[in-house]
């Protein structure tokens, strides 16, 4: 089942990249999808069947503009700090806690935090995330967690858990 899904995803990607219905293209794609699916199928995430849940897709489609909004906002903030004559930054590494449990969800949370300018995930240790911030937010762990990852957690939980 997982093998079949992997095969399908690889083949779909190949067809999108080639954008042609030539039998030779389809044959080559099928051959390489088989090769990749057979040899690298193990490293695919376990619960790949979640890909076909429409509810998750709906939340994912919601998540993209939501994330882009925060990304652009933070980008402008960093741009302001970079262009300011004094470079007003307070860098540092802080520890925050997440309530997400799934591997996939935590990976996407870490990637979202990294893609938001001004914060960068250095390491994940269980529920703890070590974040390098250009401008360290004030407060204790709970307040910082709310500030840095609180905006993404509710949607990510619905997508991946």
């Amino acid at each position, binding site marked *: 089942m997982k093998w079949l899904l992997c095969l399908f995803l690889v083949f779909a990607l190949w067809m999108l990249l080639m954008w042609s219905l030539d039998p030779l293209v389809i044959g080559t794609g099928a051959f390489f999808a088989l090769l990749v699916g057979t040899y690298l199928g193990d490293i695919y995430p376990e619960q790949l069947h979640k890909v076909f849940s429409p509810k998750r897709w709906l939340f994912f489609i919601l998540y993209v503009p939501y994330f882009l909004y925060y990304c652009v906002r933070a980008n402008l903030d*960093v*741009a302001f700090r970079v262009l300011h004559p004094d470079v007003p*930054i307070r*860098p540092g590494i802080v520890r925050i806690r997440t309530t997400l449990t799934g591997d996939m969800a935590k990976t996407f949370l870490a990637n979202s935090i990294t893609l938001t*300018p*001004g914060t*960068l995930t*250095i390491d994940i240790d269980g529920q703890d995330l070590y974040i390098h911030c*250009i401008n360290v937010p004030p407060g204790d762990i709970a307040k910082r967690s709310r500030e840095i990852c609180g905006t993404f957690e509710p949607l990510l939980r619905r997508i991946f858990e």
Partner: protein
Amino acid sequence: MMLDVAWWIIGVGLAFDLLGCVGLIRLPDVYNRAQAATKCVTLGTCMLLLGVAFVGFSGTSVPMGIKALICAAFVLLTSPVGAHAICRGAYLSGVKLWPESVEDAFGPRADQIQQQPTQKGAADREETKAP
């Protein structure tokens, strides 16, 4: 019409790329520079690719547009992982934070990683000793 939108998107993307480069020069240490270099540039590059996709869909070449969109998705997925790996590797191999940094919560955890003879910690130590 669609071409105009595409040019505007490409222009804004270039502006973000430029800001990323300015940040790379002006910010102090490895970690801050990695932030500027990966983040502003990721958004800038994605907007450039989106602009190319718009140009493609406006009648030039649909496959080009689709390829640009797929490239944007892959840049979005891989760029944060690269930044994370570079910064974690830099910290574990002893690159210091900027002296005026206000906090360093990763120190104890880094010591723990380097002392534990687990597979991952051992691999990190090997990398540290190599040069």
